[in-house]
């Protein structure tokens, strides 16, 4: 090992490095396969900064990393790449890039990207994510399905309760994400209160997925009916989202019986866990804001219902008052009408009664007169006819007087003082007395003969 004779300045060393590197890499263009991370665009300046990485296929850990930039005329290649491939130029995609090695004394080593190979669109990172997704689909058909490019999981089909209040929070106590989430949640402007149970786990590092998985198991085994499980991480390196792309954790999220809200990335990342969870938010702050707006919509619904309650109650009372008023009016008018009608009817009845009675009286009067007249006539006639009859009888009596008969030459014959009307009565030995009108003759019977009945 050589040591320089005298110490030199860092800038001198760097200049030395620059010279050597330029010698070694001058005008050399490399086709490099790498994944993108932490892309920052400055379109106004035609600049883009990012980190290129390479991951180990078996362990998924990062094994190479280099800062890179696209600028100047090359900057247009991003737009061209997006338009040509339909793939957004974003983090976690594997690309084939034409690069030059660039060294700057102040900023150090970086790769200058001159072009992006459009034919190499699907990066290995996406492939490995795709492989995890495919394994999830293949091994868990009951819990994970793909419909039109979207993942339908058991967890996604769960419903949030109307209000999310009792929360199980998985995070690292040290992570910024934890503080962001709690701050946003606790100091919400609606003064909603929450009960947050903390399940701490490291969210970065090689075993992060196992630790997070353990916390999920703890939550499940607690038997507590949480409204939601919130999984957050935030800040930290852009390179460290591997835990959320692991099969173990993604499967647990997909099958978890309590709806899970993720807030594990920054704007630019979307992990497999995000795809499996009930609700994906981009940051811990947004996770908290989403919960608050979920509760807010419930509160608004309550307020609406309250308004409706007041409105409808008043409507009912007013309409009932109208009904009662109508009934009252009808009652009064109807009962008056009825009474009036009845009065009218009675009056009519009375008039009829008076008329009928008068007529009847008149008729009876006439009858009586008739009877009286008849009586008069009849009695007179009767008296006359009786008088006539009496006269007749008198006449008859005069005719029947024996003296008058004797005067007309008839005679009565007596024997022994009794009048004789039958020949058989006569005793021929005793004398008979013949009485005439003017005197009597006593005679002796010499002969008696009875006339036959024919005479």
């Amino acid at each position, binding site marked *: 090992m050589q040591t320089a004779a005298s110490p030199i300045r860092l800038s001198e060393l760097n200049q030395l490095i620059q010279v050597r590197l330029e010698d070694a890499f001058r005008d050399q263009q490399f086709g490099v396969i790498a994944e993108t991370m932490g892309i920052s665009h400055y379109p106004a300046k035609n600049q883009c900064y990012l980190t290129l990485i390479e991951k180990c296929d078996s362990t998924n850990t990062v094994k190479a990393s280099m800062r890179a930039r696209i600028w100047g005329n090359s900057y247009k290649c991003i737009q061209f790449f997006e338009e040509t491939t339909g793939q957004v130029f974003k983090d976690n995609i594997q690309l084939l890039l034409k690069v030059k090695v660039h060294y700057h004394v102040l900023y150090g080593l970086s790769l200058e990207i001159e072009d992006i190979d459009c034919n190499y669109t699907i990066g290995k990172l996406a492939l490995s994510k795709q492989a995890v997704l495919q394994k999830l689909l293949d091994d868990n058909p009951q819990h994970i399905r793909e419909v039109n490019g979207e993942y339908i999981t058991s967890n996604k089909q769960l419903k949030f309760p109307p209000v999310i209040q009792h929360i199980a929070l998985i995070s690292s106590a040290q992570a910024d994400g934890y503080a962001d989430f709690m701050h946003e949640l606790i100091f919400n402007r609606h003064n909603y209160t929450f009960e947050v149970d903390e399940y701490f786990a490291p969210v970065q590092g090689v075993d992060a997925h196992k630790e997070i998985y353990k916390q999920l198991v703890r939550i499940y085994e607690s038997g507590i009916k949480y409204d939601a499980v919130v999984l957050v991480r935030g800040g930290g390196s852009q390179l460290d989202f591997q835990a959320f792309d692991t099969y173990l954790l993604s499967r647990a999220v997909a099958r978890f019986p309590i709806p899970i809200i993720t807030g594990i990335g920054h704007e630019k990342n979307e992990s497999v866990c995000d795809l499996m969870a009930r609700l994906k938010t981009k940051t811990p702050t947004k996770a908290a804001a989403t919960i608050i707006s979920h509760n807010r919509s419930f509160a608004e619904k309550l307020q609406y219902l309250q308004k409706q*309650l007041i409105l409808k109650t*008043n409507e009912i009372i007013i309409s009932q*008052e109208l009904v*009662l008023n109508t*009934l009252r009016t009808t*009652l009064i008018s109807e009962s008056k009408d*009825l009474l009036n009608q009845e009065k009218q009817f009675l009056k009519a009845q009375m008039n009829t009664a008076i008329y009928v009675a008068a007529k009847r009286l008149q008729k009876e009067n006439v009858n009586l007169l008739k009877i009286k007249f008849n009586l008069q006539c009849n009695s007179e006639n009767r008296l006359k006819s009786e008088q006539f009859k009496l006269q007749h009888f008198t006449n008859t009596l005069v005719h029947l007087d024996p003296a008058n008969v004797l005067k007309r030459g008839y005679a009565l014959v007596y024997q022994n003082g009794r009048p004789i009307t039958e020949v058989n009565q006569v005793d021929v030995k005793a004398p008979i007395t013949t009485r005439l009108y003017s005197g009597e003759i006593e005679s002796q019977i010499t002969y008696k003969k009875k006339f036959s009945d024919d005479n």
Partner: protein
Amino acid sequence: MITNLTYQEALDELTDIISRLESESIPIDELAQKVKRASELIQYCQSKLTSTDSEVKKIISQLEDKSDL
């Protein structure tokens, strides 16, 4: 007796009396009695309505007090 009725029962009975009045199926002998009953029912319904109204207003004002917090 009448206070045992619910508002709806009272209203139903009232409506029944009125409709019988309208159809003139109430004998005159019962008219006074029926009209008396109807007016009692109206008063009863009205008082129930009024008390409900004030009760509702009270509840609503409590509601509004709370929602102002």
